[in-house]
């Protein structure tokens, strides 16, 4: 994965994002044990992060174990897994939090025990950890909003219904807020409704079908990746080819849909890169080397026009890669 780096990022350690380039260390000094916690591995987004983690762990020659909590409804499980990682005497813990606020106490405990913790992908309260890398979800929502405005004609009426994802998940709310902030800049854009719901395709499909009825004037569907996936079929069936579909994050289905022209755009935060950087940040913390405290990948909207320019192997794991939950150092 040499070609991933140097990767263009923002260095937000100081609070204000500064463009920078990230390059990992060549190899860890020792085969450390690194514990990785994910909310789940149920979509290609988290598989992409895992891909970055695994590839970088191999490159850095460290031991890595990945645990997933089975979904965003399992915060207690993630807390237990965090405890288990500490009990197993991991040298460092990388965590994609179910709830950043919810893990604050654990972070304090890890700090007291001297175990470095790196936050990956999901946002955290400011200065919660010695090192983290994630995009601000609100900012990412904003990016998608801006992408929508950029793709629409100046006098076009935009009647939007948002489908952010599960209520109470935190991330769905943050995305939604950013998106609303961005589209508020255009007086022609109206948010007709916000439909929260579980992030499975089946649930989203039902929500969209109902929304097609409840909001006959709707012409933009903005939501999570499963929303967009469900929307494609529902919109085609309703014969509403005028409806634009935008996804707030990336997965394999989004990429395929974009290539087929089924959706307008989707946003990406380069999850593969995030996973890889997280491993390197962890190694640096263990070895007490200088570390960028907050790395923010530069979120981008991918649409038909930008696809060729985007480095796709930082966006998704190769289709042929099947997830690996542990890496043994050589």
């Amino acid at each position: 994965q040499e070609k991933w780096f140097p990767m263009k990022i923002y260095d937000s350690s100081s609070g204000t994002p500064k463009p920078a380039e990230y390059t990992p260390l060549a190899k860890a000094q020792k085969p450390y044990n690194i514990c990785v916690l994910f909310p789940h591995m149920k979509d290609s987004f988290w598989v992409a992060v895992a891909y970055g983690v695994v590839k970088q762990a191999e490159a850095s020659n460290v031991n890595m174990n990945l645990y997933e909590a089975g979904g965003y409804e399992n915060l207690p499980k993630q807390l237990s897994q965090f405890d288990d990682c500490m009990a197993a005497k991991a040298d460092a813990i990388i965590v994609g939090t179910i709830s950043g606020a919810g893990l604050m106490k654990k972070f304090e405990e890890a700090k007291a025990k001297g175990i470095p913790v790196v936050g990956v992908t999901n946002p955290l309260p400011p200065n919660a950890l010695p090192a983290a890398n994630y995009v601000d979800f609100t900012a990412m929502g904003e990016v998608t909003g801006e992408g929508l405005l950029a793709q629409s004609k100046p006098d076009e009426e935009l009647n939007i219904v948002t489908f952010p994802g599960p209520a109470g998940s935190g991330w769905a709310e943050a995305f939604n807020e950013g998106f609303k902030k961005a589209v508020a800049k255009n007086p022609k854009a109206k948010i007709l409704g916000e439909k929260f719901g579980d992030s499975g395709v089946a649930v989203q499909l039902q929500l969209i079908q109902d929304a097609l009825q409840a909001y006959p004037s709707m012409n933009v569907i903005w939501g999570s990746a499963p929303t967009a996936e469900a929307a494609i079929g529902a919109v085609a069936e309703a014969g509403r080819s005028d409806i634009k579909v935008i996804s707030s994050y990336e997965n394999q289905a989004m990429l395929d849909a974009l290539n087929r022209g089924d959706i307008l755009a989707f946003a990406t935060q380069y999850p593969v890169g995030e996973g890889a950087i997280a491993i390197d940040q962890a190694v640096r913390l263990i070895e007490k080397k200088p570390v960028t405290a907050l790395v923010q990948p530069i979120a981008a909207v991918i649409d038909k026009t930008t696809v060729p320019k985007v480095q796709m192997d930082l966006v998704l794991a190769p289709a042929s890669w099947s997830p690996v939950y542990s890496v043994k150092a050589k």
Partner: protein
Amino acid sequence: MNAQASSLTAQPGVTASYGRSLLGRIGFLPALLILVIVGMSAVDPQFYGPINILNILRNAAFLTIIACGQALVIIGGGFDLSVGAVVALASVVTAKTMGVIAASFPGNDALIIAGGLAAGLGSGAAVGLVNGLCVARLKVSGFVVTLGTMSATAGVALMITSGIPVYGMPQSFVRDFGRAQFFGLPTAIYVALIVLLVMVFVQRRTLFGRYVYAIGGNTDAAIVSGVGTRRHLVGTYVLSGVLAALTGILLTAQVGSGQASFGGDRMMLQSIAAAVIGGVSLRGGVGRVEIVAVSALFLTILGNALNLLHIDSRLQPVFLGIIMVVAVALDELGRRRKLRV
């Protein structure tokens, strides 16, 4: 009496004894359903728009199919918590199998679809068989067995896919089956109607249906009357597994990809709710699938109505919960003509 079935419901202190009047037999549900339909039509003309009706019917169709199997298991005195996970498993197994066959026999759509369907339904039957055998042979309560297989089945589905949707099903499957319409109605509705009719027939006119009632109503009586209880118990779980798998396949065909996120706890709870609200007693031995279908329709319309009424999606569960409890409480109070302690 089947210990675990009675456990779940027996309301300490109160046993309703009521005559088998028309109301006693079908309950308040149809009336409530008509009330909601009339009310919604008056409030919002979108409600009776043809597309909305199609959406409602299709979603009710999915729920009906899975609830029919669930109802049968509950009538037999059991409980099937694994249906949600089976929906997911069948979805990914079907999609994966189709992908594999398509790779070796490209273009042979009939073979690909047949193979996929067989594998999907087979996976459902397999889970049902495990459930049934554990319940009937090891005499463990259905609740616990299916709680276990629910976890295991979901695990297997995720292991197969790693959570990534499975593509590669032939377009004809999605186009001519999943999203196709005959006489203006989507396939799923026909499938649900056929399932419902067959199940009504099974319940009323076949030995199997009769025996399921008997086993759920009084297992010991069924045994001493010479009914092979084990076989029929296994049968209910297998049927429930197959119908859940069928739902999974229909969803897969509609969405166009195999997803391990289908089903889940939500669908499982909904299927039981549809059965119970439809008058299936968790004590076993009582219930009719046609009322369960009405109840599935009721629940679907309720969700649709809350959306059409533009109710804040965070508050929707509150309404749903209250309406559900009120509907069942009314039903219960209506039946309780005479109190017996």
